[in-house]
C-alpha cells in the first residue's frame, strides 16, 4: 500500500519506435516507499520497456519516468543513484568470485564502505551458501547468479528496486526464498517495481498489480481490491478483452 509520495513514477510515459511501433502507450503508475508493484503481461506487453525507461537505457518519446523525484532522461546519472536493478538473467563477471563481483558493483554503485564481511553477510542473507562466496561465478547456476544480483541490489541500498522477471527459471524453493526477501525489502521501505509472468507470486506479495497489454496498462488493482478475486481469471479476461477490443 502506498503510504508516502511515490519513489517510482511514470507520467504519461510513451515510447514509440521507428515506423510508429508503440512499445509503451501513455503509462501512468506510481510506487511508494514500502510498496511492491507487480506488472503482469505477455511478451511484448511493454514491461521491459518500462524498466528500460526507468533506467534511461532508452529515452521516452513523451512523458516522464521519475525516480525519487528525478526525471530519468533529464538527469540519468543522478536518477541511477536511487535505483537498483535485477534482471531476468543476472550476468556478472564469470572470472570473478561472488565477493569480487559484489565489491565491484557496489563500488560503482557509490558504496565504498563495505567490508568483505558485509558482502558475506548479504550473500548469506540472500541464501548463497558460504562455500560459494569465494568461488568464480563461471560455475554458478542461474539461481545462484540471481541471488548475487539481489545481493548487489541490497548493497546498493537505494530507495527503489526494479526487478525484470526475477523469478523466471527459478525452482519453487528458490522462488519462495525470493518472495521472502522481497517482503523483507518492502518492510525496509523499498519501493519495488517488478515485472513478472508469475501471477501466483504477484498476488502473494504485491501491494499493487498492473496488467499490461500491447504497451498499455489495462488494469491496476491494489491488494485490497484483489482480495477474493481470481487474478488468473482477471489476467486472462483483460488480455482477451483487450485483444477483442483491438481486433
Amino acid at each position, binding site marked *: 500500500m502506498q503510504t508516502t509520495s511515490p519513489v517510482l513514477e511514470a507520467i504519461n510515459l510513451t515510447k514509440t519506435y521507428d515506423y510508429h511501433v508503440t512499445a509503451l502507450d501513455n503509462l501512468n503508475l506510481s510506487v511508494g516507499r514500502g510498496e511492491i508493484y507487480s506488472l503482469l503481461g505477455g511478451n511484448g506487453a511493454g514491461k521491459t520497456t518500462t524498466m*528500460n525507461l526507468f*533506467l534511461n*537505457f*532508452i529515452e521516452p518519446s513523451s512523458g516522464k519516468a521519475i525516480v525519487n523525484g528525478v526525471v530519468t532522461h533529464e538527469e540519468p*546519472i*543522478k536518477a*541511477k*543513484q536511487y*535505483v*537498483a*536493478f535485477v*534482471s531476468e*538473467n*543476472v*550476468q*556478472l*563477471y*564469470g*572470472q*570473478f568470485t561472488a565477493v*569480487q563481483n559484489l565489491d*565491484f*558493483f557496489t*563500488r*560503482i*554503485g*557509490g558504496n*565504498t564502505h563495505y567490508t568483505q564481511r558485509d558482502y558475506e553477510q548479504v550473500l548469506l542473507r540472500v541464501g548463497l551458501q558460504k562455500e560459494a562466496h569465494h568461488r568464480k561465478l563461471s560455475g554458478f547456476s542461474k539461481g545462484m547468479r540471481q541471488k548475487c*544480483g539481489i545481493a*548487489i541490489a541490497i548493497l*546498493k541500498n537505494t530507495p527503489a528496486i526494479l526487478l525484470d522477471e526475477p523469478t523466471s527459471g527459478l525452482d519453487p524453493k528458490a522462488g519462495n526464498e525470493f518472495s521472502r526477501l522481497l517482503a523483507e525489502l518492502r518492510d525496509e521501505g523499498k519501493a519495488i517495481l517488478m515485472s513478472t509472468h508469475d501471477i501466483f507470486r504477484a498476488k502473494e506479495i504485491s501491494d499493487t498489480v498492473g496488467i499490461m497489454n500491447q504497451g498499455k496498462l489495462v488494469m491496476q488493482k491494489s491488494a485490497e481490491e484483489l482480495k477474493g478475486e481470481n487474478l488468473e481469471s482477471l489476467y486472462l479476461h483483460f488480455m482477451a478483452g483487450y485483444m477483442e477490443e483491438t481486433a
Partner: protein
Amino acid sequence: MLSTLIQKEIRALLLSPKFSLTLVACSVLILLSIYTGINEYKASMRLYETASQIESTNFQEARNLMSAQAMVHRQPNPIQIFSTGIHFDVGRLANIARWYDPNFTRSIYSETPVFALFRMLDLSFIFQVILTLFAVLFTYDAISGEKESGTLKLTFTNSVSRAQYLIAKMIGSSIGLLAPLLIPILIGLIMIQLFGIHLTTEDWLSILLFLGSGFVLILVFMIIGLSISAWTSKSSTSFLVLLAIWISTVMIIPRAGVIAADSMVNIPSDSELASQKSTFAAEKNSTFSKELSAIYAKRNEPTQGMSREEARAYRDEKEWEWMEEDDKLRKEKDAEISEYNTKLMSEISNKRNEKARLAFTLARISPVASFQLIAMKLSQTDLDLKTRYLESATRYKTEFTGYLEQKQKETGDPGGIRIEMNADGFKFDMSRSTGIDFSDRPRFQHPEVSLKAIIPQLLGDFSLLGITGLLFFGLSFIGFLRYDMR
C-alpha cells in the same frame, strides 16, 4: 569511480587467458629478438673491426702508391638491435678509387640470402605485427563483449558515465597489455649491458624514444579496437572488422604506398644508370685515347732519324713533362666523366627522394608505417643510410685521392705501372719508390646524425600517430554515446 573501473579492467585482464598468452608470447619473442639483435650486432662489429684492422695492416705494409688501397666499412649502430631497418640490405664496404664512384657492396642479405628469405625478427617487427595484433585481441570485445555477456547493462544501471567507462577501458586495457611488455624489455636492456655493448646517453635516449613510439603504436591500435567495439553489438563482427583493418594497416597500405609511388615516379634502374654512365665514359675514353695517340705521334716526331739510344734519352728527358701533360688531360677527362656522373646521380637522387617522399606520404595512412619510419630514423637504418655513407665516401674519395696526389708529388712516384718494351722483352715496374709512410693518410669519417637532428624529423610521424589515436578515440566516444546498452 574511475579507479574502480580501471581496477576491474586490470583484474579481469589479469585473470583472462589473454594475459597469460601475451605474457608468455611477448617474453619469448622480445627476448629472442633482443638476443638475436645483440648477436647480430656483435657479429657486425667483429666484421667491421676485422675489416678495419686488415685495411690498417694493408696500409702499414704498403710501400708504394699502387698498393695503397682505401676501403670504407660501414659501422654498425647499437640501436639496430631493436630496429634493423635497411642495415642488412645496404652493402657493408666500398672501395675508394680515383677511377670510379664509391659504391657500397656485399650486404649481409646478398652474402647470406637465406636471412633475406624471412627477414630479421627485430623488436620493431614485433611491435608492428605481433603487438598490434595483441592490441586488437585485447580490445575487440571491450564493449560488444560486455554487452553480449550482459555485464554492460548491469554496470550502467549505476551512476557510471559513458566517458568514464570508455577511459577506464582504455587505461585498463593499456596497462594490461603494456605491463607484460615491460618485463621482457627490461630484461632485454639488462642483457645488452651484460653482453658488454656500449651505449652512449644518446643511444639510451634513442632506445627510450623507440620504445615510447612502440607503446604509442600499440595504444593507437587499442583505441582502434575500442572504437570498432563501440560501434558494433557483436564481438564477432567487431573482430572481423578489426582483422580487416589490421591486415590493411599492417600488411597492405605500407606496401601499396610504395608500389603506387613506384608506378607514379619513373626512375631508371641501376643497370640503366650504369649503362648511361659507361656509355658516356666510353665515349670520353675513346676520344681521350684518340687525343693521346695523336699527341704520342707528335711527341715521337723529333725522334725520327735518332738512334735508339738518342731516342730513349730524349724520351727519358721529356718523360716527366709528358706524364704531367697526360695526367692533366686524363684528369680533365675524369673530371668531365665525374661531373656527368654527379649530375646524373643528382637527378636520380632527386627523383628517388621524390619517390620516397610520395611512398612515405601514401604509406603513412597506416600508423604502422609512421612507427617504422620513426624506428628506422632512431636506429639510423633508414633509407638515407646508403646516401649518408655514399656522400661521406665520396668526400673521403676526394680527400684520399688528394692525399695520394700529394704523396705522388712528394715521392716523385708516378703511381702507376710502368711497362717498358724493348728488344729484351717486357719490363714491368710497379713503382719507383718504396717505403712510403701512409700513417698520415686521411681517415674515413662515419656519417653520424645526432639525436638532436633526428628528433625534429620524428615530430611529423609522432603527430600522425597522435592524430590517428585521437581520431579513433573520438569515434569510439561518438559510437559509445549512441550505444544501446540493453
